[in-house]
């Protein structure tokens, strides 16, 4: 029957590749080396791209196209060799094509290709992020990859945006906007958008998506309709720039109206100014939108996974207040503050209960409104310590996943369930810390260490006290903005603002995010700025990243002289960001641990992942092939000073030239094998003592011997080259396998260690494995074990380090021979591990 299946599959199309079984070990080994060479070439191109796009080089599109062409060539060559090596058993080529075509599209300056007008967040594929915008995409990733609770919902795509603009003939009105369009022009455009007609299919699409949501969520459903612009929550936060419509009834009509309101907010004066600062001409940014089921919030807030002011990455900061989020993110309330030390588990360091005078509640007419918090609630922290720690644990996972500090919005539901509403990169200060402020400015002090430092720095100018948002229209260039509350409205004038000082405000407000992005020295929550500082008064502000601050009456020359030069980053150039974006599909490595099931073509998200996959599966192939070799290379018998004989097949340079068929340890030229042998023959490591075997051990041993023989393992065989070893050692009832490539290039190197079997009963055998796992973990191996099977591995180590580990592995093999029968108690595991590590054999 098995023969028949084999014959049939051989006739199927797509099976033209030579099966790896038909190639001998030497041929397979050459293919393996070719994969490594191609991979290295590809990796060095990736490294070069990263360097050239770091902001330290001026590059052009031609360079990117050329580098991408070379990269594609190297990966294609690797794939071709890999397919021959593995007999085409892995579906990695489609993954490569999919990712690479995304890179090509972006290089050609084209966007996404999807045709959908709405997409559910819960099943959003990772490579369609651009269609739903940054905010939606991050949220979907929280749910789909990290399995964290987010509200149910769907996205209205960038395609829908394009169609809306086209259907309502808005393109001309938008392109005719100048660089600094007049407020009247913008107001007219917003009005046209709010009155716009949905393009064909959008109305139906929204109605269908809302009906599905209603079916899942029930009649109490209300929606939050939020912006998710192209780059929003990506490199730049766009915090508070665009409209969010809350408390939207679950009808197609209401959601459609909210959708248009959000689109219109692209052309609000503040948002246009923000876009202009980021190099966008008005109208070039696309606006996908998110429609999410609202959580009935008892409390809400913001979590930072690092201290944005001091740059301390070991702490998590959570702000929270009663009710819905706006009171916190608009800076209207004085929230609770939780400071947590990162770790497993995280640890609560301090809780500061804020006044929380204001809270946001739902309002049928306004959507949401701020009211006074009931007295009895104010003094109570809005999160329990457990809830704060749960959030912190999630925060750590999110930061690890997105590879950087995060600004996360959260909400506590009616039944005490926490939800995440948003995650975006947090701007964190780092490095160049100027000397802390000292009151030597040569001017009288107005304030000292009052309030919260949002962004450190030094600034001086005339104070401009803002009482109403309409005052902003007259804001003079270079003035210091002084106000009672912080407000996202201030973004409109940020290009002219030299510093901001407010009476009330929070670290976690939208304005705070934007001030950090634009590096504007900002001091909030001083309680007294508007009463101490007069409109038009000349003042100097100095704040450091330890939260210390000084405000001087007058322009303090000595302080101003300490001001570091402004460092505008390349990231502020739109074209630079756009080009750099391609790296996301090239450089990050998501496939990290080959011992877990996620190591599959479907999980590859970047070209780097593809290369990693090719590397790991090539190693696997060569290990499997070497265990049942069809060896054509030269065969030698190696005798050692310990009672072991090994049959060697030399694949090239593994044995010193001019030796006969019988060789000794000295004549082994394979560096990795020589290191293992050195360990194996370390004086004292080889266990020779008589072992006390119980009757149960003996019975178990007989059965195990049969199993091992039936599995067809080859006794004491090694396939070697100068830089490679695949060694199988059978000692009585257990089997050791080491596969290692160990050359000058760390990127090529790996060590795979496998141990199976034993004579003693399963408890003792598993104790031996636990002891080995302890030792291997100490040396930095990743491992997994099941029953009496242990697999451990390391890779990408420098040659010297790897040789040290190979020698250790040799010692471990010698030391653990027959050790299982000696591990009578659970405590022995630790004891023997310590003895081994101490060299006390």
């Amino acid at each position, binding site marked *: 029957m098995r023969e028949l299946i084999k014959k049939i599959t051989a006739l199927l199309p797509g099976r033209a590749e030579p099966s790896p079984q038909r190639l001998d070990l030497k041929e397979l080994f050459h293919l393996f080396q070719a994969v490594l060479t191609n991979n290295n070439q590809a990796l060095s191109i990736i490294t070069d791209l990263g360097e*050239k796009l770091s902001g*330290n*080089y*001026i*590059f*052009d*599109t*031609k*360079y990117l196209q050329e580098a991408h062409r070379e990269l594609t060539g190297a990966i294609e060559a690797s794939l071709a060799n890999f397919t021959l090596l593995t007999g085409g058993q892995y579906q990695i080529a489609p993954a490569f094509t999919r990712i690479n075509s995304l890179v090509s599209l972006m290089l050609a300056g084209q966007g996404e290709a999807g045709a959908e007008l709405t997409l559910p967040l819960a099943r959003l594929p990772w490579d369609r992020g651009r269609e739903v915008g940054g905010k939606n995409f991050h949220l979907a990733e929280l749910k789909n990859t990290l399995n964290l609770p987010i509200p149910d919902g769907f996205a209205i795509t960038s395609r829908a945006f394009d169609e809306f603009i086209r259907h309502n003939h808005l393109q001309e009105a938008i392109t005719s906007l100048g660089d600094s369009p007049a407020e009247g022009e913008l107001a007219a455009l917003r009005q046209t958008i709010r009155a716009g007609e949905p393009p064909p299919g959008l109305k139906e699409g929204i109605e269908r998506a809302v009906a599905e949501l209603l079916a899942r969520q029930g009649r109490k459903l209300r929606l939050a309709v939020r912006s998710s612009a192209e780059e929003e929550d990506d490199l730049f936060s766009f915090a508070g720039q665009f409209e969010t419509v809350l408390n939207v009834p679950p009808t197609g009509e209401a959601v459609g109206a909210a959708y248009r309101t959000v689109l219109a907010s692209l052309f609000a004066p503040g948002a246009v100014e923000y876009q202009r600062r980021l*190099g966008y001409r008005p109208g070039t940014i696309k606006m996908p939108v998110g429609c999410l089921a609202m959580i009935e919030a008892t409390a809400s807030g913001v979590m930072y996974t690092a201290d944005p002011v001091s740059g301390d990455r070991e702490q998590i900061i959570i702000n929270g207040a009663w009710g819905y989020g706006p009171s916190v993110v608009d800076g209207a309330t004085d929230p609770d503050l939780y400071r947590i030390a990162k770790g497993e588990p995280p640890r609560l360091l301090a809780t500061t209960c804020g006044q929380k005078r204001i809270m946001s509640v739902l309002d049928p007419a306004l959507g949401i409104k701020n009211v006074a918090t009931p007295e009895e609630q104010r003094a109570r922290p809005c999160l329990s310590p457990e809830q704060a720690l749960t959030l912190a644990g999630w925060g750590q996972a999110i930061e690890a996943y997105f590879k950087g500090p995060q600004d996360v919005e959260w909400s506590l539901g009616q039944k005490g369930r926490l939800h995440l509403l948003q995650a975006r990169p947090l701007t964190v200060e780092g490095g160049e810390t100027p000397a802390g402020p000292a009151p030597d400015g040569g001017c009288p002090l107005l304030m000292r260490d009052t309030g919260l430092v949002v962004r450190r720095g030094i600034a001086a100018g005339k104070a401009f006290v803002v009482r109403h948002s309409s005052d902003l229209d007259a804001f003079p260039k270079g003035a210091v903005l002084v106000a009672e509350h912080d407000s996202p409205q201030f973004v409109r004038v940020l290009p002219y603002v030299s510093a901001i000082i407010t009476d009330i405000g929070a670290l976690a407000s939208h304005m705070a995010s934007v001030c950090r992005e634009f590096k504007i020295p900002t001091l909030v929550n001083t309680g007294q700025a508007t009463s101490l500082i007069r409109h038009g008064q000349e003042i100097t502000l100095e704040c450091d990243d330890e939260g210390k601050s000084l405000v001087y009456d007058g322009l303090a020359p000595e302080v101003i002289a300490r001001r570091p*030069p*402004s*460092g*505008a980053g*390349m990231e*502020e*150039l739109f*074209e*630079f960001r756009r*080009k750099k974006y391609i790296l996301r599909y090239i450089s990050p490595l998501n496939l990290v641990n080959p011992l877990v099931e996620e190591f599959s073509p479907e999980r590859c998200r970047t070209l780097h992942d593809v290369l990693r996959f090719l590397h790991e599966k090539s190693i696997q192939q060569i290990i499997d092939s070497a265990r049942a070799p069809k060896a054509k290379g030269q065969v030698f018998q190696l005798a050692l000073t310990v009672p072991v004989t090994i049959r060697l097949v030399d694949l090239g340079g593994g044995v010193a030239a001019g030796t006969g068929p019988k060789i000794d340890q000295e004549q082994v030229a394979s560096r990795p094998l020589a290191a293992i042998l050195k360990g194996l023959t370390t004086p004292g490591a080889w266990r020779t003592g008589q072992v006390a075997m119980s009757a149960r051990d003996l019975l178990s041993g007989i059965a195990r011997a049969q199993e091992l023989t039936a599995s067809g393992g080859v006794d004491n065989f090694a396939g070697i080259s100068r830089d490679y070893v695949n060694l199988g050692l059978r000692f009585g009832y257990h089997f050791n396998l080491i596969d290692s490539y160990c050359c000058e290039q760390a990127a090529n190197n790996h060590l795979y260690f496998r141990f199976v079997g034993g004579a003693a009963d399963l408890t003792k055998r598993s104790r031996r494995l636990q002891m080995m796992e302890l030792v291997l973990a100490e040396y930095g191996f990743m491992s997994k074990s099941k029953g009496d099977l242990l697999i451990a591995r390391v890779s990408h180590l420098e040659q010297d380090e790897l040789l040290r580990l190979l020698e250790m592995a040799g010692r471990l093999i010698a030391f653990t021979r027959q050790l299982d029968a000696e591990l009578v108690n659970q405590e022995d595991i630790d004891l023997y591990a310590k003895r081994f590590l101490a060299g006390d054999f």
Partner: protein
Amino acid sequence: MSHSVMIIDDEKIVGDMAKLSLEQDGYEVETFLSGEAALARLSEKKFDVVVTDLKMKGIDGLEVLRTVKRFYPETVVIMITAFAHLDVAIEALRDNVHDFFPKPVKIKELKQSIRKALGEG
């Protein structure tokens, strides 16, 4: 008074990146997407340094170099190009180009070269 630098490259991102980095060091920077536009501006305003791409449609980098050397001999010219061919480099050197960089250009090196050209060490 700060020194003035003109950047000429037919791709916008090159000029933008150069402008951003040089302005940080206090230079006054203007960018142009073609040799024609750049030469027109040169007839109105004196620049201390001209950084030009080599291969451009119409008036190319070599022509910019020759024109500058002929009419504004005190202006320093630095050439950048994706095609770092030796023969072109030699030709440019013969025409008194101050420096020659293949793209991608390391910003630090470009700045050093400009400082040297202006006698700022």
